[in-house]
Every structure is written in C-alpha cells, then in structure tokens.
C-alpha cells in the first residue's frame, strides 16, 4: 500500500486503472479536467488509450465504441458536459453497454460557477436520457479515498448489470487533496474490499434475453458472434422491431435487472448515531455529509438525539432507510431541494421533512447545529440565504 497526499482526481484515476479501465475519452471541463489529464498521463503507461472527443456527446460515444471493442471504458465531466451525454447514455442503457461515468458536480444551471461544488444533478443522474423504461445505478462517494473504491465498484457493477454506472462526486472531492492509500497488488485490493469483474463476450444467439438476470455478458463486436445492437427496440437476437410486446420485454429487463438485484449495492450507505431511533435523521450524500457527520457528533455531545444517514447508493433510491416516522433534514449543495423530494416521497406520510441547502460552499457546523435545534423544537427552517439577499 502506498500513501499519497493527492487529489480525488488522482484517486479516481488510480481506481479506474485498478478496475481494469484502459480507455478514456473526455472533453476538458472544470473540475474534471485534471482527471482527464491524469488519465492522459497514466493510461498510455498501462498500454491504455486516452483521447479527447470533439464534445462530450462524442466522448461518450467514443467510450461506447471502445466498450463494443471489448474495453473497459470511462469518461468524466461536470454538469454542463453530463447533459450532452443524454444521447449516448440512452443508447448505452438500451444496448446494455458497461461504462463508468464520473460527474463532478459544480454550481449550476449551465456554466454557473465553475470552481465551486454543487449537487444539482441528483435527478439528472436518475434520468440522464429520455424515454423512461429503465433504472440507473448511481453511486456518490464523500472522500477521495472512497471515490477510488466507488469507482472500482462502479466498474464491477457496470459489468455485472451491463449498464453505465454514474459516480456522482463534487468539486471538493475531485479537486481536494487528501491522504490516499493505493493498493499495489491484487491482495491489497481484496483487503480494501475492491471487487473486479472481467469483461466477458456474449456469444449469442440471444444478445437481449427477456430476463431480469444479471451476469449476462455484454455485446462485443469483432468476434463474428453475429451480435447486433441498435437504438431500436431489440428482439432477443438484436434485430430491430416495432412491437409494443417486444419493447415491454426489453423495458422489463432494463428496469428489473437492476431493481431485482439491488442487494449487490444497497449496502452502500453509512449510518451515524442511528441505533437509538433518533428524533431527527439528517440525510445527505457527497462532501456535505462529512460536515453533517461532524455536526451530528457535536449535537450528540450537546444532548440532541440526532442521527446521520449518508447515502452512497443514490439510485435506485434506497426507500428502505425511510420507513420510520420521524423528523428528517436533507442537507444538499443546491437551493432548489432535490434529495429532499425523494425523502419526502419515501418517508411515512406525516413525517416532518426539512431542507437545508447551500451551494458553492459547504454548510457550516453552526448552521447545521442551529437547524437541528430549530427542527427539534418544532420550528421550521427559514430560507436564510434568500432573506439575506433581500428576496
């Protein structure tokens, strides 16, 4: 094991290489540029390929092409690039192509603030493309070290489920420095809980079987298997077909291969002070969860019965954590409230749901303590930011 003081971009690069990624196509965008740069340096050393796309849409299509050629491939971007994936992301979902996609969140909409963290793509990662009739797997680490592990896990899941997996990070994770331990061999990888799944080749004749089963090898071209893949509704052999019944089978697979095998990743969460049925559950993901954890520990010392639930597996949304009727507070890096809507949906009807949003900067511990205090007293939170700006 080697220890470094390095950025999340470094950790993600090393994680991807450990997972067997040998192809990266990207497009420069803050704050994911350094990841592309690190890949451009590291991949050729490993015999891997780094190229730049003419835009993000092309970049993900290039990755799709590489995956079709049998490579483990990835791209990385931020919100304004992620929206340009809509086209290839849908194709990859439909054709069941394993890919790893990293999104480092910044302040939006559009270009917004380039160098500050945001969490504006919670729902976008659930619906990265049009048409519906699919589930997506989205994982959100909260540190550089964990980002490395989650990237390895995302590659693993993408192979087993035959689908793109988005890792939703934020600018503080990708740009921030941290002490990072990198395993140097398979034994150390195992020790750190890293799982790997090799690329297998589907030999046909059923390339798109009507089943919710996982571990079906994906389509790989160039082996004369007679594989077909397209953007149209496929028959089991991959022919295009305009038939609702056939599409129903296909959609069923896209939805239920993931829903019915959530046990493979729904253990990805962290609970702090959650054993004694706390009066307030603070829900968050990504970097804000680290401040939440500190604040919750402090609140406990102050005698507040507060617990923290940190989601790593964001989608499919883990409803099972929200069965208890209690008070919830969603802490997010956006001002519109995204995660909070899902908490509201998943929690029992008369639970009290609260939202604390900041954007561009993390919430502070005093902010959080104040919010906990108010909620526990039965008061509602004001939108302080708005009031300060005179809105």
């Amino acid at each position, binding site marked *: 094991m080697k220890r470094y003081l390095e950025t999340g971009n470094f950790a993600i690069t090393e994680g991807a290489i450990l997972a067997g990624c040998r192809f990266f196509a990207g497009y420069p965008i803050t704050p994911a540029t350094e990841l592309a740069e690190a890949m451009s340096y590291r991949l050729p050393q490993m015999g891997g390929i780094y190229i730049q796309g003419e835009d993000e849409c092309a970049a993900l299509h290039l990755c799709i092409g590489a995956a079709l050629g049998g490579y483990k491939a990835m791209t990385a971007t931020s919100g304004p690039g992620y929206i340009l994936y809509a086209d290839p992301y849908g194709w990859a979902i439909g054709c069941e192509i394993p890919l790893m996609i990293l999104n480092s969140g910044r302040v939006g909409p559009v270009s917004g*603030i*380039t160098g*500050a963290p945001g969490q504006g793509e919670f729902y976008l990662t659930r619906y990265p493309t049009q048409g519906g009739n699919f589930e997506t797997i989205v994982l959100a680490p909260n540190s550089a070290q964990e980002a490395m592990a989650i990237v390895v896990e995302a590659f693993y899941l993408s192979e087993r489920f035959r689908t793109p997996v988005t890792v939703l990070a934020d600018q503080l994770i990708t*740009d921030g*420095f941290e*002490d990072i331990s990198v395993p140097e061999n398979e034994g150390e990888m195992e020790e750190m809980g890293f799982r790997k799944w090799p690329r297998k080749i589907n030999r046909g004749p059923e390339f798109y079987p009507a089943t919710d089963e996982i571990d079906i090898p994906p389509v790989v071209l160039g082996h004369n298997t007679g594989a077909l893949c397209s953007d149209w509704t496929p028959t089991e052999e991959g022919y295009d077909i305009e038939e609702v019944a056939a599409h129903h089978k296909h959609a069923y697979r896209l939805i239920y291969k993931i829903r019915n095998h959530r046990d493979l990743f729904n253990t990805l969460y962290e609970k702090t002070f959650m054993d004694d049925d706390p009066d307030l559950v603070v829900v968050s993901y990504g970097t804000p969860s*680290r401040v939440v954890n500190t604040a919750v*520990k402090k609140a406990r010392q102050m005698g507040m019965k507060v617990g923290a639930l940190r989601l790593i597996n964001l989608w499919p949304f883990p409803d099972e954590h929200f069965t208890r009727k209690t008070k919830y507070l969603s802490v997010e890096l956006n001002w519109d409230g995204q995660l909070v809507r899902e908490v509201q949906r998943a929690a029992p009807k008369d639970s009290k749901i609260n939202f604390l949003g900041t954007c561009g900067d993390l919430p502070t511990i*005093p902010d959080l303590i104040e919010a906990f205090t108010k909620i526990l007293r039965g008061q509602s939170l004001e939108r302080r930011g708005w009031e300060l700006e005179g809105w």
Partner: protein
Amino acid sequence: MKTRTEILASGFGGQGVVRLGQILGEAAVKQGYRVTMLKSHGTEMRGGYVRSQIVFSKEPIDSPMVESPDYFVALSLAAYKAFKHLVKDGMILYDPAFVVQLDEGLVCVQKPVPAKDMSVENFGRPVFANTIMLGVLANLVEELDPGTVLDSILHVIPKYHEENKKAFEVGYELLGKR
C-alpha cells in the same frame, strides 16, 4: 481533547498558498496523520484571495472545512479581512508587507511574520517567503515534526534546495525555541 489540527492559509494567487498547504499536508501524511487539504475555488482566485484549508488528525476526518483554525496564515489584506473572524483559540500569522491594517479588536494572538522582507533581505528576492513561513509553522505546530516538514519542502520544490533549507531555518528561528 483536541482531535484535529486546522490550518488556514490565504493570500493572492501566485504566493504559493496551495503549495504551502500541500507541503504541510504531505508532512502530516508522512507522519501517519489522516489529512484533507481543500484548495481554493476558481472564483476566489479571481476574486482576490486563494485559500488552502488543511486538516489533519489521527482519526478519520469528517468535515474537511476549516471552521476554527489553530493557525491562520494571512498573506493578503483581503484574506485577512475575510477569515480573521474564524480564529478563536488559534493564532493569526500575518505578513505585514501585505496585511497593512490590523484589527486590534480580535481576542486571538496575532503575530507578524515579515516573510517577504526577510526573503529579500537574505536572498535578494521574495520567492523564499513561503519557505520562511513554513519554518515558522514547523516551529509552532507541535503535531508536526520540523525535519519532516523540511523534507516535504525539498520534495515538493525540486529547485533551490540550499536556499530553501536556509530559508526554513530563518523562519524556524524567528519566534524562538518551541
């Protein structure tokens, strides 16, 4: 009991604020600490100050934010004004060449470190001010081993090893033995 050490450094772009954080962070990693170091945002680079937030601890670090710095290194007036209020029990180290206007109302300790002038005086140019400041910190921050900090300086800055060693010593001696 104090479980974590927080250091905030802030100044203009080009003063080496991020590098200073990187050197301290790397020394802490070498000493087996868990470390986070957030470098400033792009907006801040254009808006007057760059910021490094260094946290190290024997325990895993939750919040990487420096909300109550043990040491605040202020290398510009804008940075000083922006973050002075964060310091409660800690200490402000400021370079009087840049922080020309002190808030005497603060309760915390504020120590001038004329790193820029000392660099010019000793080496004929200001580029070693950062290393001088690191020498001061190596002396003050009890959790850090001065030899390890110096090693990290020499590792992170591949050039001018002799000058950097001397600058480190100049800084280390400035506030007397710890």
